[in-house]
């Protein structure tokens, strides 16, 4: 029993002693891989990054926590790993390259263990399994954060798209047009409504045209949002016209049972504009130059 404990204590200590060897071996593994991206990260940076990780790992590693992946001791390491994979996600490393980074450390550790426990296969098997499990869980954490990093980028882009895709256009004095492209969800409607109402105040417009040619499907939620926008526009004292209702959308809306009869709707932006002109008692005519000349 005593001997067994002693042997176990050795593992972490032994690995700590072999730190330089581990780093060298790990670097050798990484450099040997054809997927190495020298264009994204210099070898010196890679070495510094790897050394930091091995350093932190060996410092925290004890024989107790070696078999306990969830140990609080590893929090620092998870943090470093998180940082590494997020920067890698942003720098444009592929998941494969990021994965290889972690898993080549396993190879290095296992090689060292193999040399150390050459004469004790049972011990070697035991320790190898533990190390393998530990690195696997590091790998999972790396992936989770890598994907989280990517998802953050996507979410930020979604926000940006919402912002930029709702321009309010002043088509005529007193007439605003708002082409909606994409799906109208609650958040989007909020942005659309805010922009529109603010622009009505800024320009003193009395007519707003909501063009939904670019909305792929109008379900009851979208319709509800449209009706709300129309009501809000009316409260501001402006008339709201919905244009760009495609034939298939019209049929769908009727089947759904949505009542849009209180809203002025037109098939095209052009006919909505024509209607707006007639309300404002404007007329668009061809220039009658010939008449002027003959006089």
């Amino acid at each position: 029993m005593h001997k067994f404990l002693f042997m176990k204590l050795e593992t972490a200590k032994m690995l700590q002693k072999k730190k330089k060897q581990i780093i060298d071996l790990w670097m050798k593994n990484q450099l040997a891989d054809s997927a190495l991206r020298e264009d994204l990260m210099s070898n010196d940076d890679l070495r510094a990054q790897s050394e930091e990780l091995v350093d932190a790992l060996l410092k925290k590693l004890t024989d107790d926590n070696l078999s306990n992946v969830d140990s609080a001791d590893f929090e620092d390491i998870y943090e470093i790993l998180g940082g590494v994979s997020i920067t890698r996600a942003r720098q444009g490393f592929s998941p494969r390259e990021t994965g290889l980074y972690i898993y080549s450390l396993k190879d290095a550790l296992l090689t060292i263990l193999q040399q150390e426990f050459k004469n004790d296969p049972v011990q070697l098997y035991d320790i190898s399994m533990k190390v393998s499990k530990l690195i696997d869980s590091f790998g999972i954490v790396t992936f989770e954060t890598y994907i989280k990093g990517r998802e953050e980028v996507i979410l930020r882009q979604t926000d940006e798209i919402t912002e930029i895709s709702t321009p309010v256009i002043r088509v005529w004095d007193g007439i605003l047009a708002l082409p909606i492209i994409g799906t109208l969800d609650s958040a989007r409607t909020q942005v659309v409504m805010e922009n529109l109402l603010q622009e009505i105040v800024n320009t003193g417009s009395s007519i707003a045209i909501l063009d939904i040619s670019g909305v792929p499907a109008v379900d009851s939620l979208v319709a509800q949002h449209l009706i709300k926008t129309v009501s809000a526009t009316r409260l501001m004292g402006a008339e709201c016209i919905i244009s760009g209702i495609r034939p298939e959308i019209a049929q769908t809306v009727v089947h759904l049972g949505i009542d849009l009869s209180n809203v002025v709707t037109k098939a095209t932006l052009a006919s909505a504009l024509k209607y707006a002109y007639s309300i404002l008692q404007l007329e668009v005519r061809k220039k009658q130059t010939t008449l002027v000349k003959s006089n």
Partner: protein
Amino acid sequence: MEKNRMPMANTPTTVLNKDKMSVFKEQDVVPFRNRVKEYATKIGMGLVNQTKLITAASELVRNMLRYAEGGDTLIEVISKGRENGIRLTFADKGPGIANIEQAMKDGFSTGKSLGLGLPGTKRLVSEFDIKSIVGKGTTVTVVKWKNG
């Protein structure tokens, strides 16, 4: 409505293709709708029926998000006799619907919506089936035939 218009009540239905997708946030609605559209286009469904199916899918998926915090969906390409169609299944583990008859009425909503989701969806598709156990969840299955 248009159900059983064609004399194929006894013809067995075969599933040609299956696709599962989980929906748990509002961002999943658009990809799901696109997936449905992809299958509808693949079997050559016309634009109007496609739009109806997508709108129905959108309604049901939104219901799932709103009342049950999401659930699992199943998209199937099915065939019955000479007719192809799409079958969508929406299964959630939400609170369930106590009174389905009431929920299927126009204008009834426990939320603040228009109350057209379920009855409207039924009008948009060829076949509609809803099963709900209070406290366990709700499963809605709809079928839209290519020419239905």
